[in-house]
């Protein structure tokens, strides 16, 4: 993880320096804001990786003599399949259509969206058995 974090930080440094150079070279605002905040984009990810590294300590990918089996076996929980993204997408389509044609369609779309996000979110938190992860 450490080389990854450092790469992001180098990216941030590069864009911040570039932002300053661009400002003095052109004096143009849109590019300056864009380039500087691109540095922010890299900084956010880099900071998170390095901060997490400090919190959980060096992982197997930071050690030269680590084995595959040393890695944390818990990859996280992945849904084997779900129908709920479909109503979420239908709700998004309703809202988009409503913005073009009629406001009442937006209201219906928001209702469908809240219900379908709730369904997606609680899909694995219902029933007698709860997931371990």
């Amino acid at each position, binding site marked *: 993880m450490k080389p990854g974090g450092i790469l992001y930080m180098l990216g941030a440094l590069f864009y911040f320096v570039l932002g300053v150079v661009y400002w003095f070279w052109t004096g143009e605002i*849109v590019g300056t804001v*864009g380039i500087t*905040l691109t540095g922010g984009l890299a900084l956010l*990810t880099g900071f998170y990786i390095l901060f997490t590294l400090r919190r959980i*300590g060096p992982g197997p990918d930071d050690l030269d003599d680590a084995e595959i089996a040393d890695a944390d076996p818990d990859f996280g929980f992945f849904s084997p399949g779900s129908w709920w993204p479909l109503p979420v997408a239908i709700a998004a389509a309703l809202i988009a259509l409503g913005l073009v044609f009629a406001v009442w369609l937006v209201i219906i779309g928001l209702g469908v969206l809240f219900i379908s*996000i709730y369904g997606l979110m609680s899909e694995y938190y219902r029933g007698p058995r709860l997931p371990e*992860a």
Partner: protein
Amino acid sequence: MSAATFQQSTHPTRASKTAVGTVVWLASELMFFAGLFAMFFTARSVSPELWAERTELLNVPFAAVNTTILVLSSVTAQLGVFAAERGDVRVFRNWTLLTFLMGAYFVAGQVYEYAELVHKGLLISTDPYGSVFYATTGFHALHVTGGLIAFLYVLIRSYQTTRFTHGQVTSAVVVSYYWHFVDVVWIALFAAIYLLK
């Protein structure tokens, strides 16, 4: 969940995929706000006299109080996350509820401020200042509202399940990341709109 498995699952050797994904998405959100900031500063540099005139309409003390509440809500959100990581769901709910109320107060304050400005004759279609002001603060308020809904879902799920699972802790953590992000963006927006007159 036993204490041993909880201990193990909160101290993994690799970063949570959900958390990394959220941070990468927040980085892309930063670029969305970069567009809004670029628009703001461009419009400001093109018509400085309009800015000098229009910023007189702003109620800075009111917005400052609102900002303080939003910043403090980030603190309560973090206290809630600490409680969630300890597995203390009761304390987590209380802090999250308080965060929700503070965020809701912020959005209500924004609505009040909009009503006041509309009353003074500043509409989104009035002039470039109106367009820029409502577009930047409006998109931010939409983000805050989205965060409020996310808090609500996390809260509802904590009541719905009999156990507070590790997955729920992850949800609480990533929603707090989002909340901190929206908070930091507001500090920058507040400085640009209300302080840089």
